[in-house]
């Protein structure tokens, strides 16, 4: 091959490799394995590994489960797979003031660890907002808007 042809082959080959790699990163299923958080069901599946290790758990705050004691800063609530989850809800204990958006039926991500008692001890409570932006309406069910966490 002549030198000019070689350079052209190299140019095409290098661009192809870069494009394929970028394509695999963006299209391939790599991301599916890299989890930012576990859902309550996944925490149950991996119960033995979740105790002691720092993990994040994402889910929906269950109705009538929030207990907030302003004087002791103790926050207790139950996180389930979806808005009404009867199978896998996990009780979370936290020692921090809940953020403004925190309420029943909203998506949350908690960071902390599972205790031997089967409850989650959270160092950090974060509210996950979906990509929905809605004007408030009368009698609106907040849970309807928070589909993102449930889809996972």
């Amino acid at each position, binding site marked *: 091959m002549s030198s000019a042809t070689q350079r052209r082959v190299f140019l095409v080959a290098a661009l192809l490799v870069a494009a394929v790699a970028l394509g695999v990163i963006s299209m391939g299923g790599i991301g599916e394995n890299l989890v930012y958080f576990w859902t309550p069901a996944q925490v149950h599946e991996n119960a033995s590994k979740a105790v002691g290790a720092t993990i994040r758990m994402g889910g929906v705050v269950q109705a009538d489960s929030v207990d907030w004691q*302003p004087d002791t800063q103790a926050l207790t609530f139950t996180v389930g797979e979806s808005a009404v989850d009867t199978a896998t809800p996990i009780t979370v204990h936290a020692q921090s*003031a*809940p953020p403004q958006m925190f309420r029943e039926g909203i998506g949350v991500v908690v960071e902390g660890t599972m205790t031997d008692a089967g409850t989650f001890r959270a160092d950090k409570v974060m509210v996950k907002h979906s990509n929905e932006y809605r004007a408030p309406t009368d009698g609106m069910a907040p849970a309807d808007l928070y589909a993102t966490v449930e889809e996972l």
Partner: protein
Amino acid sequence: MDGMIDGGWGFVWAAYGITWAVLLGYLVTLVLPGRLSPPGS
């Protein structure tokens, strides 16, 4: 709920204020004398 971290307008004003201040400040640095035309011309 009592004692919650409250959002509200403070955060909104901070976000908008910083954005506009930086963008206007950046504009001023660009139109300073001598920057858009060579000095002495």
